[in-house]
């Protein structure tokens, strides 16, 4: 018994020096293994068990020094690049707000609104940052049900505006991140695991259709597809990759075929490419966007389309404060502002994706990819619509456009993202290493006692 306590004392002494608790398990295991190896080596030289243990520990060196060294290496580091870029983007949003106060609206009021939401958003970001993101992988079902419950509650208490449950629609953007947790929890669950993931997706997708927010539906589908594909390619479900991919992509292909065969989509696509065929109807916004852009300069105020000389831009194109902010600043200040904004967002997104690929833990990888994709897809959709390609309605330009509630949701996503980048390196996907350790023929898994006669 004494050998055990001595080793334990030594390992505890090391771990006490390491402030990041998440890494304790891993270090404990690695060094314990080492001491055991060393002990066995001494024992094979004919030294008795207890002396061998003591000698092995002595060989290790001063636990305080080892612990301090390891603590230095494993200190959680905030990801300053993402924090800096986020603040830069928020500032850009506020800056644009100061310079664009259309006469028709109360510019000052809009400015204060943006300021308040930005501050609340930073608070939310900080909150999500300090809540450990691993809860997404620990309680995926609870999170999913809470999210669904909250959305249904919001739909019940609010009236649809222009046929859409606006307040509920914002929360849709949290589904991809929640889905990442769901996929994570399906490790080694085989084909049923994939089907269950599909069911979770189907529920969230159905909700987005009911709201309805087709853009969110599309965003949701894309994010979930990427995360699920990644999981399959990483052999997360322990099934044949090809069959698993077929299981995901075949139903998708069938539903795409059905959607396309209905004909409505074709009409929309045609309209998106050439809005001029219906300039006063469905193609109105896109036509006006393109007209405003055609008169834009590289630097400075652009000219208004011929028939609209008497009008202000806000009368020509409604929504310049939220849905068409980019179009407006291109018209008002020139293309260079557009370039600055798009460059900033691109740097942010690329940096975030690079950090995603560096994640060691699968949960960190799934969650950060889902959150980054949510922001990236919003950006792409927004930029496309603002350039006149309006296949879908824009959601928001992350951190910049005046779409207050989306700003809050996006800030939550950034908080989660930063939390992953801060501690993601330390999270180990426990289950796996544990499973491979159990070589004994009696296992206890998922509440079941398994006796396996095939192991030796």
């Amino acid at each position: 018994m004494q050998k055990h306590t001595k080793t334990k004392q030594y390992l505890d002494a090391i771990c006490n020096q390491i402030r990041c608790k998440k890494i304790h398990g891993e270090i404990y295991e690695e060094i314990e293994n080492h001491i055991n190896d060393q002990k066995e080596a001494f024992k094979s030289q004919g030294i008795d068990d207890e002396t061998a243990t003591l000698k092995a520990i002595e060989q290790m060196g001063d636990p305080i020094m080892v612990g301090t060294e390891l603590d230095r290496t494993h200190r959680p580091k905030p990801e300053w690049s993402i924090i800096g870029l986020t603040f830069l983007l928020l500032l850009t949003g506020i800056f644009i707000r100061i310079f664009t106060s259309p006469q028709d609206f109360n510019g000052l009021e809009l400015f204060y609104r943006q300021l308040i939401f930005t501050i609340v958003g930073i608070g939310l970001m900080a909150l999500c940052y300090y809540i450990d993101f691993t809860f997404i992988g620990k309680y995926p079902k609870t999170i999913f049900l809470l999210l669904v419950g909250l959305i249904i509650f919001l739909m019940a208490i609010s009236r649809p505006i222009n046929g859409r449950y606006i307040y509920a629609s914002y929360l849709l953007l949290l589904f991809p991140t929640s889905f990442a947790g769901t996929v994570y929890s399906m490790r080694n669950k085989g084909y049923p695991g994939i089907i269950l993931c599909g069911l979770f997706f189907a529920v969230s997708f159905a909700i987005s259709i009911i709201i309805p927010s087709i853009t969110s539906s599309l965003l949701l589908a894309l994010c979930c597809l990427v995360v699920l594909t990644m999981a399959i390619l990483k052999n997360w479900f322990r099934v044949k990759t090809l069959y698993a991919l077929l299981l995901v992509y075949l139903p998708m292909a069938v539903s795409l075929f059905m959607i396309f065969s209905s004909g409505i989509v074709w009409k929309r696509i045609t309209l998106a490419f050439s809005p001029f065929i219906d300039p006063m109807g469905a193609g109105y916004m896109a036509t006006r966007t393109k007209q405003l852009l055609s008169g834009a300069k590289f630097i400075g105020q652009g000219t208004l389309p011929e028939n609209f000389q008497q009008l202000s831009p806000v009368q020509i194109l409604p929504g310049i404060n939220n849905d068409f902010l980019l179009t407006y600043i291109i018209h008002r200040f020139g293309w260079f502002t557009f370039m600055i904004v798009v460059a900033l967002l691109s740097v942010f997104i690329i940096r975030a994706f690079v950090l995603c690929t560096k994640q060691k833990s699968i949960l960190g990888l799934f969650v950060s990819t889902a959150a980054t994709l949510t922001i990236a897809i919003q950006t792409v959709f927004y930029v496309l619509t603002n350039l006149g390609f309006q296949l879908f309605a824009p959601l928001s330009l992350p951190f910049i456009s005046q779409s207050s509630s989306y700003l809050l949701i996006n800030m939550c996503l950034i908080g989660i993202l930063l939390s992953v980048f801060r501690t993601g390196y330390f999270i180990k996907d426990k289950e796996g290493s544990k499973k491979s350790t159990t070589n004994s023929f009696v296992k206890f898994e998922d509440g079941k006692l398994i006796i396996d006669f095939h192991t030796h």
Partner: protein
Amino acid sequence: MAIEKSLLNGSTTMLILKLLEDKDMYGYQMIEELSKKSDDTFALKAGTLYPLLHNLEQQGMVCSYDDNADCARVRKYYNITKKGKGLLADKKAEWQTYSSAVNRVLQGGATLAEAY
């Protein structure tokens, strides 16, 4: 023969990377190999090795994975990355410059003596 500690410290990184260049290893194995290959000249303490390995891992020079390849116990194996191979090449070059300089100085007396 035991070598002075300060001389060893700087080159330990290089030696570890060199070991990993041949094959993936776990910590204990590295110490054993190092001691075997150097005829017990390098008796690396585990307390020095692990912080160093974890540091190298964080810098992306090596990466680790769990495996129970040759025994019942799961071990944390380390594998050298492309970046790590680059560092090894740099360290080797640095070492060669250093050691040849030392040798030149040490032999310098001899050549001077020959000249006279």
